[in-house]
C-alpha cells in the first residue's frame, strides 16, 4: 500500500506544484476557482482518454508517438505560461494595487485564466494518464488490489495536500511581491518544461543534435528522490542535462524576459518605462 502511495504521490507532485503556483498567481480573481477546477476536470478526462489509447499513441509515428505527444503538451503549456506572464507584466501592477486599496477581488482579471486553466489541464493530463495507467494495472492484476488502490488514492490525497502547502506557502508572500514572485516561478517552470520537451524530441529521434551531457550532479542531488523531483518540476532541475536542454532552458528564460519587457511598454503613454 505504501509503495502505491509513493508511486502515485511522485507522479502527482508536478501537477500539484503547478496548480499551487497557478492558484497563487491568480490570487484575487473571483472566477479562478471555476477556471482551475475546470482545468483539473478537463485534465482528468483527458488523462483517462490518453490512458485508454496509450497503446495507439505509443505505436504512432514509428513508436515515437508518446514522446511527440509529451513534447507537444509541454510546448503548448510553455506558450500558455508565456502568454500569462506577458499579460501579467502589462496588468499585474494595477491588479496588485487594486487588491491593496480595495482589498477585494478584481473583476478585470478574467482574461489570462484561459491560459492558466489550459496549463493546469495539461499538467493533470500528463501526470494523470500515468496515474490512471498505474491504478488500472493494479486493478487488472487483481491480487491484493484493494490495499494498493487505497494506497494510490491516498497518494492522490497527499498530492492535493502538497498543492495546498505550495499555495499557502506562496500566500505568505506580501501582496506587493506576490505577482513578481509567481511570474519568476512561472518563467522557471516554463524553461524547465521547454527543456523537457527538447529531451522528448531527442528520445523521439527527431532532434538529436547537441546530445552530449553537460554535467552530472546525480551524486549531489538525485532526480529520483522527492527533493530532486520537486526541483525538477519547479525549476526544471535535471541531473544530467544535454547541451540542447541547457540551450533551450536559457533561450526560454531570455524569450520570457524579453516578452515581459515588451508587454510592459505602452506606446500611448510616451513615457520611458524607467519607473521601476
Amino acid at each position, binding site marked *: 500500500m505504501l*509503495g502505491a502511495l509513493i508511486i502515485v504521490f511522485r507522479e502527482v507532485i508536478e501537477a500539484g506544484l503547478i496548480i499551487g503556483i497557478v492558484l497563487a498567481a491568480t490570487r484575487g480573481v473571483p472566477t479562478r476557482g471555476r477556471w482551475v477546477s475546470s482545468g483539473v476536470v478537463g485534465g482528468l478526462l483527458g488523462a483517462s482518454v490518453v490512458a485508454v489509447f*496509450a497503446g495507439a499513441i*505509443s505505436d504512432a509515428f514509428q513508436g*515515437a508517438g508518446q514522446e511527440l505527444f509529451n513534447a507537444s503538451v509541454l510546448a503548448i503549456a510553455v506558450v500558455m505560461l508565456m502568454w500569462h506572464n506577458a499579460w501579467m507584466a502589462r496588468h499585474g501592477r494595477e491588479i496588485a494595487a487594486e487588491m491593496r486599496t480595495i482589498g477585494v477581488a478584481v473583476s478585470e482579471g478574467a482574461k489570462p485564466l484561459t491560459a492558466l486553466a489550459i496549463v493546469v489541464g495539461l499538467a493533470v493530463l500528463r501526470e494523470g494518464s500515468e496515474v490512471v495507467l498505474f491504478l488500472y494495472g*493494479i486493478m487488472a492484476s487483481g491480487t491484493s488490489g484493494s490495499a494498493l488502490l487505497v494506497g494510490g488514492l491516498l497518494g492522490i490525497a497527499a498530492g492535493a495536500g502538497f498543492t495546498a502547502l505550495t499555495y499557502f506557502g506562496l500566500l505568505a508572500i506580501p501582496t506587493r511581491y506576490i505577482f513578481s514572485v509567481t511570474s519568476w516561478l512561472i518563467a522557471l517552470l516554463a524553461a524547465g518544461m521547454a527543456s523537457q520537451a527538447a529531451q522528448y524530441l531527442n528520445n523521439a529521434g527527431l532532434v*538529436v543534435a547537441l*546530445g552530449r551531457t553537460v554535467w552530472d550532479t546525480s551524486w549531489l542531488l538525485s532526480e529520483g528522490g522527492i527533493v530532486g523531483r520537486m526541483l525538477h518540476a519547479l525549476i526544471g532541475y535535471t541531473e*544530467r542535462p544535454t547541451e540542447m536542454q541547457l540551450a533551450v532552458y536559457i533561450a526560454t528564460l531570455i524569450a520570457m524576459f524579453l516578452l515581459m519587457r515588451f508587454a510592459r511598454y505602452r506606446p500611448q503613454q510616451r513615457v520611458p518605462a524607467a519607473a521601476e
Partner: protein
Amino acid sequence: MRRTIFALAVLLVLAPAAARADDLTLTIKGHHFTPAELKVKANTRVKITVVNNDATPEEFESKALRVEKVIPGKSKGVVRIGPLKPGRYSFVGEYHEDTAKGVVIAE
C-alpha cells in the same frame, strides 16, 4: 569557405549512416527485465524495443539515460538512447521498482 561547404556536405551524407541506431530488445515478464544487463556500443545512438509481456502497464524510466516511457500491458515500445560515454546506466520499471531493475552497459 568552399572546403567548409564540402566538409558539411560530406557530413550530411555520412551522418545518417553514423547515427543509424543499433537495435536491441528488452523483455518484461513477471515485472522483471530480460536481459537485466544490456550491452550497447558507446558513442552511438541505440534503439531498444521494450516488449511488455505482462498484462499490466510498466514505465521504463532512467534518469541516467534521460528516458521516461510508458509501455502498456501486452504491447511494446521503442526507446532511443545515446550517444553514451562508456559506463553503467541503470534503469527501472517505475511501477514495480522492487523487481524491475536493469542496467545498460556502454562499452
